[in-house]
């Protein structure tokens, strides 16, 4: 029994000494035990095998302020172009840019060249025509008298012929005299009418020339300010070419272009903020004054005219306009970065059991500060992925981090 025990003890000792881990072996083993998992951890978490880092959020409730943004140029609401009706040299330009003018005020003159002479000539023609009427009147009188005499003579000859005092031949000669006198009378009457018409024509001509002459004096169509002077005295101005531009600079608006897909809900009377390019730090107040009926179909923009207080703005200046639309109280919303379009379907990536799952939602308004109203499809406790380090796919393994900053 004792021997057997000793034997066992001896064998045990032999086993332990054979497989004994020397101190060095233990160190080696421990080092390996630390290094291998550390390396594996390093490979799986830091390198390409790591789960995609994401940040998450839940549904937020609060007020949403919808507004739209557009760019435009400052314009006068009413602007008039003054241009001559006929081609001519500009002889006088009485106003300059910035001058205020009254409606009907003489502002420019076109050199009439020979219009004055033409007018004088047409007056002379009138005079001549009235003399011609007098001549024709006299001629008519003469023709009437001749006619009367011819009739009387003829009557007498008819009587004489009836009594056989004169021959048929003589009677025929008197008949001819009478017919000829009637024709002469007719001619004299027509001639008088022609002379009268001539007089009328000359008068009309003179009128026309006087009017044309009047057109060489350009007057302001409205009360306002001269905003542009396109020509100088001495320039040749073609008919219809603009010489001066006059506008009411107290009545300004910004002709704003708003993208059609954001233009829903725009109405006259909505408040707007206008940032002029020259005054980026000071937004000015404005009001939607007119929504143009025709949109620009090429650029897909609606034209919104936003009235602006006069003073600081310059015509033609670029402006950025923000128009306030509706406010929705107590709306559920998500950051816009969380809402994606996947196969033409709007939705969000939900975090479920460490994996990303696409989930369709219904969205409402989108605000300019990057919030989208969620009308349906989410529960308050759903964890929604906002930012991700890579594109997400169905079932991508993800890991929540407070923020992603690594390039």
């Amino acid at each position, binding site marked *: 029994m004792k021997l057997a025990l000793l034997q066992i003890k001896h064998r045990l000792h032999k086993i332990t000494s054979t497989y004994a881990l020397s101190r*060095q*072996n233990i*160190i*080696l083993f421990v080092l390996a035990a630390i*290094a291998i998992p550390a*390396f594996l951890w*390093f*490979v799986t978490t*830091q*390198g*390409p*095998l790591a789960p995609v880092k994401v940040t998450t959020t839940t549904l937020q409730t609060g007020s949403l302020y919808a507004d739209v*943004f*557009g*760019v435009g140029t400052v314009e006068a609401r009413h602007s008039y172009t003054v241009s001559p009706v006929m081609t001519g040299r500009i002889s006088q330009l009485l106003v300059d840019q910035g001058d205020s003018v009254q409606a009907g005020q003489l502002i420019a003159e076109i050199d009439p060249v020979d219009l004055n002479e033409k007018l004088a000539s047409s007056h002379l023609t009138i005079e001549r025509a009235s003399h011609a009427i007098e001549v024709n009147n006299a001629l008519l009188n003469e023709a009437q008298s001749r006619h009367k005499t011819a009739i009387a003579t003829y009557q007498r000859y008819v009587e004489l012929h009836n009594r056989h005092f004169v021959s048929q031949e003589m009677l025929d000669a008197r008949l001819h005299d009478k017919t000829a006198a009637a024709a002469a009378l007719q001619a004299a009457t027509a001639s008088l009418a022609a002379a009268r018409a001539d007089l009328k024509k000359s008068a009309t001509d003179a009128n026309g020339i006087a009017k044309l002459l009047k057109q060489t004096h350009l007057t302001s169509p409205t009360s306002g300010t001269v905003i*542009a002077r*396109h*020509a100088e005295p001495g320039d040749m101005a073609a008919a219809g070419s*603009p010489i001066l531009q006059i506008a009411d600079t107290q009545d300004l608006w910004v002709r704003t272009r*708003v*993208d059609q*897909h*954001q233009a829903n809900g725009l109405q006259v009377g909505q408040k707007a903020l206008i940032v002029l390019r020259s005054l980026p730090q000071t937004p000015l107040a404005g009001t939607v004054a007119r929504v143009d009926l025709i949109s620009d179909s*090429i*650029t897909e923009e609606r034209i919104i005219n936003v009235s602006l207080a006069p003073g600081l703005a310059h015509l033609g200046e670029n402006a*950025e306009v923000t128009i306030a639309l509706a406010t929705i109280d107590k709306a559920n919303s998500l*950051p*816009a*970065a969380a809402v*994606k*379009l996947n*196969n*033409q379907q709007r939705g969000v990536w939900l975090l479920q059991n460490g994996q990303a799952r696409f989930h369709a939602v219904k969205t409402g308004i*989108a*605000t*300019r*500060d*990057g919030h989208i109203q969620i009308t349906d499809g989410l529960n308050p406790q759903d964890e929604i992925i*906002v*930012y*991700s*380090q*890579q*594109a*997400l796919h169905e079932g991508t393994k993800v890991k929540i981090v407070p*923020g*992603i*900053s*690594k*390039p």
Partner: protein
Amino acid sequence: MINLAGRDILHNWGKFVMTGVGLGLLIGVTLTMAGVYRGMVDDAQALIANSGADLWVVQQDTLGPYAEPSAIHDDVARDLLLQPGVMATGNVAYLTMQIQHAEQEVRIMLVGIEADKPGTPAYLISGRPITQSHYEALADIKSGLNLGERIRIRRHEYTVVGLTRRMVSSSGDPMIFVPIKDAQEVQFLKDNDALLNERARTTAPSRLPGAISPATSQMVNAVLVQLKPGFLDEEVAASIRRWKHLQSYTRAQMEEILVARLIATSAKQIFMFLVILSIVSAAIVAFIIYTMTMNKIREIAVLKLIGAGNRIISLMILQQALGLGLIGFVVGKTAATFWAPLFPKYVLLIPGDALRGFFLVMVMCALASSFAIRAALRVDPASAIGG
């Protein structure tokens, strides 16, 4: 039986580990070079993947929009929606340019996008998407821009509202996304001097301001098309080519253009360097193991003298070589992972590459040790005493 290799390593472990680390750094450089090559190809592919398009419709007879200039009218996008199989279309404009940021010139690729249309970045890492129709920008984080920063691009200032990641051009320049109308203006509208010059040429005698108004351009570089499920991209592309008289590329073709043509030479250059580096690394590993064994030749002779078998000696050398390779690989992989993000251009470390590298290192070590083993086995035991 004792583990001779372990004993020997522990006997002089400092030297062994140092050798391993040195070898590891060399392997790290090789892995990084593989990463640089992969990153280059990945930059090109990221451009394709990030656009989210199935088809690229560009000007006829061009390789646009990345490899060649291309210009088409922006209403083509609407026409294309009528083609069977087309689900969504988006106009895009690309322009490589230089911007000023933090008193430094940053080379960027300006991308004009339409909201919610193909071409919009699929994910952000902070901020929000573009909500304004003008003067807002999304920037890639590699550009160094931060949220809320204002950058000047030609005529206007843009506010950075969101940041993206891995949105780069085929040459690795970070992308900056702006609304398409702004991009069109940047691309096709001239500077003030050019405008005045143009006006002076066309309206010489007249003094009418604005007679030649800077008409907004209606051209874009390409239309990105997304297909409805169930339609073959090649068929839709062929139909667009035939009936719309526009060039149309599928994703595979675009990848071919970018990878096989645009970056082909530079990628081959890097690849050649990678091959040479691998050969040099292998040679150095072989030399290290050979000299390490040769340094121990006297001890091996003693082992032989006391009757140690060939198997024991060979195993010792092989185990040491493999151990060295293992340490080298671990150090190399760790080092490469650490310094890869510091590179100015993208370095992509693929697990497959690491695995291949691991096997190559091991095979290399085993091969190198076979030379050392041959030398060790040929040693005369007598040299242990005789010298």
